[in-house]
Each structure stands twice: as C-alpha cells, then as structure tokens.
C-alpha cells in the first residue's frame, strides 16, 4: 500500500483556454498535505486541478492513485478514482433535473442499488452549516448561485473523498459562508485529508497551507517535497515507483 495519495510523473498537459498548458512535471500528494497552487493564469491553475481530478487526459505521463497505476484511456477504470476525489470549482454543476437531495444522494442511489435512502445526520449537519438545509427538496433552478455552489461543496464532502481539490473556493461560497468553510477545512486538515487549493484569497491559504506549487509559462515549479512519514521505509517508496 502506498503512502502517497496521488502521484503524477512526467506529466504534460495541453493548453486550456488562455493558459499555456503544463509541460513535463511530476507532483506527489501525501496525506496531511495542504497544497496551494499559484498561477498568474487562472486557466493553468484550473487545468492542473482538472488533471488531478482525471477530467483532463495528459499528452503523456503516468497517474498513480493510492499506489496503483491507472491508464487514463480506460474510462471505466478511472471512474473508481473519480469517485474518491472531491472536486469543487465554479465550473462544476448540480444535475438540473434532480432535487438537491437527489443530487447529494445520487452516488449512494447508484452504488447501494436503493432509492429509498435518506441523508444521514453528518450530511444534514453539513447542509445546515452551508445554509441549504431548507432547500434540499428544491431543484437547482430554485437556488441562488451561491446556494448551488454550497450544495456542490456538501455533495463533494459527503462522498468521503480521499483527496479534495478546491478551485477558488472563495468564489464558490462568498464571504457570508467563509467562517463555516474555514471550520470545515480545519476539521478535514485535522483528519489529514490531502487538499489542493487554487485560490487568490490569502485568508483561505495562509492558515492552512503547508506546501506551494507555482505554475508559470508552462512549468510547474517551487514545489516543496512532502515530508516523509514516520514508519515509511525507503523500500516502500522504491517499490511504489
């Protein structure tokens, strides 16, 4: 079993939007890492997060999730990884012909093969914290954009992800939910959930972040290598690579 949650080796990504793409980088994410992504080009930062979420196929490179190599061309194989990755971004959406509650329960409906299940107490507590408890029976069209984004955060958190990717979370929930969001992050960090932020808001970054990577001119640089945990041997690492 690998110590690292996610490893990308010799990865190259084609440009998206107004970005430059990212060429020939490696990236390792370990439990307890809270990594900030800095980039003058928002599209490059977003591209990086989408690549971690396996939503973008690389030009070349290998993707290792929880110690297992994955071929990104094998679509069904990648769905198992996607399910374990929480991805919050202003670009993601709720499914519009399902209610908020059905959106939150969709993975459970599918994987548990039951339709008569309800939100459990931790999920309801998250809904309360994010201020959408009253609206869970409505469809996304009945929610404000901020409430939709709050529901997306709740959806991604109740998946019990093994990695959390946050693309500009300050835009996602607005200032009124900032404290609630910071409280949730604190709890997740205490649980050593690896988190990758792409944010321009220092208030969000400075209290949490313990590593930074910078993407500029198609290069990923200034990465701080994660500290090795106690009890992990060199053989473990060598075997993994």
């Amino acid at each position, binding site marked *: 079993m690998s110590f690292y949650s996610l490893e990308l080796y010799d990865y190259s990504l084609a440009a998206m939007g107004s970005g430059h793409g990212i060429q020939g980088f490696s990236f390792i994410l370990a439990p307890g890492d809270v990594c900030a992504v800095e980039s003058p080009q928002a599209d490059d930062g977003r591209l990086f997060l989408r690549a971690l*979420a396996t939503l973008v196929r690389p030009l070349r490179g290998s993707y290792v999730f929880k110690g297992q190599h994955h071929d990104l061309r094998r679509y069904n194989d990648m*769905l*198992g990884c996607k399910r374990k990755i929480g991805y919050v971004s202003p670009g*993601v959406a709720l*499914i519009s012909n399902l209610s908020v509650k059905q959106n939150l329960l*969709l993975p459970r409906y*599918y*994987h548990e*093969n039951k339709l008569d299940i309800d939100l459990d107490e931790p999920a309801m507590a998250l809904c309360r914290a994010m201020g959408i408890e009253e609206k869970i029976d409505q469809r996304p069209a009945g929610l404000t954009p901020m409430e939709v984004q709050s529901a997306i955060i709740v959806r991604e958190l109740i998946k019990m992800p093994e990695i959390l990717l946050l693309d500009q979370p300050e835009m996602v929930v607005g200032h009124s939910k900032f404290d609630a969001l910071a409280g949730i992050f604190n709890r997740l960090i205490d649980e050593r959930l690896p988190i990758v932020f792409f944010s321009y808001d220092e208030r969000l970054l400075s209290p949490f972040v313990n590593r930074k990577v910078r993407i500029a001119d198609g290069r990923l640089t200034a990465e701080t290598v994660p500290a090795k945990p106690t009890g992990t041997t060199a053989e473990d690492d060598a075997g993994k690579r």
Partner: protein
Amino acid sequence: MERVIGYIGRKAIASITHLMDLFALVFRIFSQVYNPPKAGRVLVRRIIVQQLYFTAVQALPILIPIALLIGCLVIIEFSKLSGQYDFSRLSVLLIVREIGPIITAQLVILRSATAVTIEISYMRVLKELEAIEMAGLDPIRFVCLPRLVGITSAMVGLFIVFDLVSILGGYAIVWAIASIPMSHFLYRIAKAVTLSDIGVGLIKAVLFGITITVTCLYRGFEAKHQITEVPIATSRSAVECFLYCLVMNVFISIVFYL
C-alpha cells in the same frame, strides 16, 4: 475538377467516419446490456420507466388523433380508388408496413429526439455530465442506456397503438360518417395481415428507435462549450434522424418485399 473530386472525397470520408462513430456508440451502449454491473440497476430501471412515460404515454394524446385521421383518409381514399374489392389489403399494406412506422418515428423525433438532444447538450455544456462522472457513474450506463431502452420500447408500443387506432378507429369513423360500403372489412383485414407484415413493422420500429436515440445522443454529446451549440445540435439531430429512418425504411422494405 480535382477540387470537386476532393470535396466529394472529404464529404464521403466525413460521412463514413460519422456512421462509424454512431456504430461505436451503439456498441458501447449495448456492451452495458450484455455485461451489466450490479450497481445502479434500480436507478437505471427508474430512468427507463420515466423515459417510457415521456416518450410513449405523453405522446398518446397526439398520436391517437393523428392515427385516426390517417386511418380515415387511407380507408376513404382506397375505397374510392379500388371500389372496395381490395381496399382492406391496401390499407393494411400502407398503414402497417409503411405509414405506421414512419409517422410514429416522425412523432418520436419531433417530441423526444429533440428533447433528448437538448437535454444532453445542456448537460454537456453546463458540466452536469462531469458531475455524473465525478460521482463514479458511467454516463453511458446512467444517461444513454435508459434512453435507448426507453425510446426504443416506446417506439414499438406507439407503432402498435398507431396501427390499431388507424385501422380500427379509422374503420369506426368511416362507418359512422360516410356511406361507403364496409362489409367484411375487419374479416378482410384479418385475412390480409400476415405475420411478416407485423414482424417487419416491429423490426422497423425497433431499428428506428435505436437509430433515433443514438443519433440524438451523439449530437447531444457533440456540444461542448457554448450554449449556442445546442440549437445547432438539435437541428442536426432532428434532420439526421428523419433521413436515417427514411433510408432504413426503404432498405427494409426492399429486403423484405422485393
């Protein structure tokens, strides 16, 4: 001259590629039927029932009057032309073999194919399909398979309803309002309908259902970034569905009746 040949060649290659893509999509959807994972069966079944309701049940109030009108017209016209002797046979030939499948397909294209293309295009443009993927669900199984099964089953059901209503309902209306001699009409119809007529009609309905669904799903998935791509995809899918159904109708009729 070279330019013209080049243009024709490029168009031919593009058309063949498009057809191959459609077959690839059919193959991917059918692979879900033959090798179904246990997860998601209840959810998929529920979406199939919803799709059946949208495509079949909600179409009945439109389909039944159309079937009655066409049934009346065909019976009246053929009785005038043939002087009753052959008109039940001709009505059956025309309705069961040709008009039934085509009109049903046209109705499904107008109501459901356009709706499905718009729905899938919006899901793609608004990144709802990505949300489905990130939940660990395969959109082919969760989105495409229920629509294929639902629309194809609805197509078969609507075709049967159309045939029954147009022949029996048309007969009833003509009997009530016109003075055309209708003796032994039903008996002649029963004698005129062969198993191959029913079989070919059903084959057409199934193939039309598959063609319509796959074409509108494919065009829906083609929209990627802009909302303005949605009407283009919808228009293309409607025209292509109709064209493919017509070509297939002619092809099947030639294979079975010539």
